[in-house]
């Protein structure tokens, strides 16, 4: 049972992370609007962070309590950004 979840294919995750990094670097040289580049980069970074947390940090196979703890700083950061938005003109 322990083995059923303990061994995701780590080299596949490594490959994904590597390819996503290559895509990120390629994105900044693309002739796109700045805002689209920004959205793409943030999305790709969040997806990479998600992969690391889910597979390398085993969050996918843990109890929900740990997932909620892991999610807390992200929620707080979103609040922080929303609270600071009025200061950005």
């Amino acid at each position: 049972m322990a083995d059923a979840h303990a061994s995701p294919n780590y080299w596949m995750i490594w490959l994904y992370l590597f390819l996503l990094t290559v895509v990120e670097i390629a994105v900044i040289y693309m002739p796109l609007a700045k805002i689209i580049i920004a959205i793409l980069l943030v999305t790709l970074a969040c997806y990479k962070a998600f992969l690391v947390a889910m597979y390398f940090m085993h969050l996918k196979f843990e109890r929900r309590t740990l997932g909620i703890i892991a999610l807390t700083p992200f929620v707080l950061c979103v609040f922080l950004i929303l609270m600071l938005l009025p200061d950005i003109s």
Partner: protein
Amino acid sequence: MSEAAAVMHPAVEPAESPLTPESWGKLGMWVFLAGDAMSFGCLLVGYGLLRSASSNWPVPATTLGINLTALMTFLLICSSVTMVKGLEAVKNNQRGRAKMYLLLTALGGAGFRGLQAYEWTSLIHEGLKIYENPWGSSLFGTTFFVITGFHGMHVTGGVIYLLVMLSIVSKPSTALGLGWAYNVVEITGLYWHFVDLIWIMVFTFIYLL
């Protein structure tokens, strides 16, 4: 009598709640990492605020250069894989492999720091200081050094942490398999992957955006 004993020693109470973790150490590390993520979150949000308020922020990708940083990113991703492989080896009772992978992970972190030292030195020679730089807003240098430095300190701490684990796993008296050693190496892994995760964010926000 037994009731009184249970009150006096709540730790021996066998009852479990959904909040009782499988490993208190792991829970402790996650709580620490959530707090640490908040530190980085505040730094990055502050960076965004300062940058958006500035009219002469330099373009990071061209001023900082991203080739070397891409290599550093690659190194950290690789060291994350060697970390999970090391943990797998501890579980499978392969002491030699566990030692090799933990050493490779620590070397990856040390290599990252080496490249960062080289990067900082060349940028300082180009004129990027913590209080001024030739390209624009002085806060560009301040935020760069504070954020990459704070992350670098985490990497240094992680390398020391990994070397301690290496010495524990190397001792023939340490029992491998799914036991205490597996638990502590797994917790070390959580910290190490977190440092990798934060670098993914730093790389995106400080270098690419």
